[in-house]
């Protein structure tokens, strides 16, 4: 259906979701992105992108625990699929190999 191409924001969110290790849901991802990059990402956009990544097969989701702060509503927790993990690896490798050409000594 949808192509497997990853946009910049999609890649960032996929990466963050993977980094959050089983605690990746909307608010947590917003906070994490804010912490690491200083970027303010729209919460509405995050949800849309997460669903899109799931439709593309990079993420899978389940419903997690409810808390009082959430008014008793459950979180949807996202974890990367194998394809997601592979895409992240691939992206990492591509970048590193390119980067190495600039500074060969870094390896």
């Amino acid at each position, binding site marked *: 259906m949808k192509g497997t191409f990853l946009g910049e924001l999609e890649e960032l969110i996929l990466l963050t979701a993977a980094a959050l290790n089983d605690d990746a849901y909307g*608010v947590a991802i917003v906070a994490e992105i804010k912490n690491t990059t200083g970027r303010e990402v729209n919460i*509405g*956009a995050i949800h849309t992108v997460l669903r899109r990544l799931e439709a593309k097969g990079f993420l899978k989701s389940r419903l997690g625990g409810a808390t009082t*702060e*959430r008014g008793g*509503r459950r979180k*949807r927790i996202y974890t990367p699929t194998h394809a997601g993990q592979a895409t992240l690896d691939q992206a990492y490798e591509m970048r590193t190999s390119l980067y190495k050409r600039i500074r060969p000594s870094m390896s």
Partner: protein
Amino acid sequence: MKKHPPNWPGSFLRWFCNPDFLEEIEGDLHEIFHEKTSAKSLQFARRTFILDVLKFFRWSNFRKPKIMKYSINNGLWKHNLKITFRVFKKNILFTGINISGLVLGVCAFTILLLYYLQENSYDELFPDHDRIFRIGVNLVDDGQYTESAKAAIPFRSVLKDAIPLGAEFTRMLPWPGYVQSEVDNKFKETQFVFADENFFRLFPLNVVSGSIDKPLDAPMQIVITKKKATQYFGTKNPVGETLTFEDEYASFEFSVIAVVEDFPKNTHFNVDFIASFSSLTQVVPWHNNWFYPNAFLYAKLNSADQAEDAKKVAQDILSKNGHQRYLDGNPTLVFQSLKSIHLSSDRQGEWKSNNTQINMKFFLALGAFILLIAIINYVNLTTANSQNRSREIGIKKAMGSEKGQLIRQFFIESLVIVGVAILLSVVVMALLWNSLISQLLDGVVAYNILVSYEALLIVVFGAIALSVIAGTYPTLATIRFNPIDVLKNNLSKYLSNGNQRKVLVTVQFSISMCLILFTILLLRQYNYLQNKNIGFNKDYQVALKMIDRNDKQNYKTLKEELIKLPFIEKVAVSNTVVGMSEGFYGFPVNFPDHPDKIATEWYTLGVDEDYLDTYDIKLVDGRNFSESIVTDERLAFLINEAAANFLNWEGEAVGKNLELTVYTGAADNRKGKIIGVVEDFHFQSLYESVKPLIIYINKHFYYTDFLNIKLKPDNSVLDQIKAIDEVYSQFNPNKPMELVFVDEEIKRTYQRELASSKIMTTFTILSILIAALGVFGLATYTHQRRAKEIGVRKVMGASPRHITAVLTKEYFYIILISCLISWPLVYFFSNRWLANFAYSISFGPFNYVLGLIMVIVVALGSSLYQILKSLKVNPVDHLRDE
């Protein structure tokens, strides 16, 4: 204090959000809210909450309608469409016939519908059109009963002072003349009027420049239309400029105060120049009288239902204040609502020749019938094809298809066909628009009706309605198969004997037959009117208009100059041209020798001694006017046969006394004798029988309006006209020549017949074409279905003639029944229509037979191909069963 987010954004979110995503979104929002309340203030948190909810208001989060949600249904739609296109591809011939038939039908119907809408939209652009009335008068004027569209000029001031209804009145006096701007261009303008100061309050138009807000009351002011502004002033702003207006008597200068948009075509009058009424004190100083000229008079009432009361009051005021001689003519007022004028009014002095309601209804019915023929094609071909689909239906039913699903599938098929047909017809109409349609319908159909928003809605709903109408029967006929019968190949009880198809084809043929017969009728009557011997020579006749007073007074000089030209046989002066419907004034007539007092309409024609020779009008008794007899000029009269018959003086009219009063400023009472009787000639249209006519000699400039010129038959008419123009321009260098071709003038009288017969012919051909397509399709189907039967017949030794008879037999029954249906209808309506004409063809049985032959030719012609195919094919091909 309990900290909670505001309620309404949450409700809003729950309303629009897809329930599948709702829980996690709401959870996240609450969590953010909670965090913000502890980090910042409650107010801040609430504001953020509202903003965040708005951030979720996006397409991907919306609830989706069921149809998009369940992919299984999506699949079914796709499946249906796929099947539809496969069926179309498999039966490309039937599909082609169906679509092209529908395209023709839809085009015909739409064009005629547009024409109908257009003709019904007259004067609607004036905001108060429903309460504006035109006041016309029925009265006896100069001894002749007239139903005039206009009213006497002083009537308005009488009404204005007296009427208690709070109505507004405005007059409009057409006064053709020559208009010239400072630049050297001068044209004759017929759409020049003088109008009262409140004209634009009744008939507002958009202003291009200047202003019409102030009343148009100062003398010598004028408002012109955009078209004329460009013509006379180019790109210059005309406001404040001067226009020269010149009529028969003098010339005047007007100053332009405003430019308005052009009058659209769908108004019952069109004007280009609107001058203030007060200018008339200079232009036509004698205008304010009860007899001539008359002006259009409009009344804007407070509401439409006051018309009756207003009429009574006005009639009352008229009888109290009218001029005595005017009241002697027994004037009766007629109030016509603005909208009714175009489709019903046919009074003396109308701006435009109007249409009739019955005409419009006829054309609308014509369109509907053509569409009906196309729908019948569709129904017939689709039901005929339904047996080919039986197996598909059977299997679908066996697999658990519900009735509703099957119905939906077939409706999708008809919707697709109708949709394609409608799209194609829009394309076809757009392509043909300029070249064909606008000419056919007199160039009046407003294109913008087509491109409006409503038109789009009509197209969409029309497509749905049409596919329901056309699709219902075939759908029900197709889905009734019992799956068990189908799968056991036991179809015989579903095979229709085609009765319903025969009925529908009969309807088609009846309609076609009616249309063919009506077309024959119209064409023959029109031809008859064109070619009937009208009693005078209309070919190679031109009439030169005497434009100004100088022309009229000195016509003799011009006549002498013209007669010197080698190609001119004869020149005669007259006060009107035969074939024009006006100018045969009803002057008072008296017959001292006749025992009874004669009260009837008399028509008169003022001419000189050469008139009869110019038009080759024959004398049946007595002598022609003669220049050598001096008394002829005032005291001799010719009458026509109709007059002699009317007076019961057949053969003895010559020598009887006759008194005629000609109004030339003063009353010229002529007591003379009848010197001759001329053969009846049609000085009016053939709608009327020849009326009693008195011909007298007139040389007074009041009535020397035309020089009638008889040309020698010659091919170089253009050179002749050029030569006449040269002579005329020496005689009157100020005005361009105005020449009337007598035969053209006569033709114009029958314009409506010409237009109708053009429309009729075109659309009848269309309907025949559609019906022929249908017959062709059915013949193809029959050929397929009866191939085996024909094969057996051939093997048993049937001759080609026999097979042809077998294949065409049913058409003969169908045609026979359509004759029984259509002929009485045509007989009834043709007689009623022909009764409109004083002279008409007799529509005899020959015409019906001609129509019948045409229908037979169409039916046989369109099935011929299939019959030949049946005859040629080798029976083995169809009988071999593998």
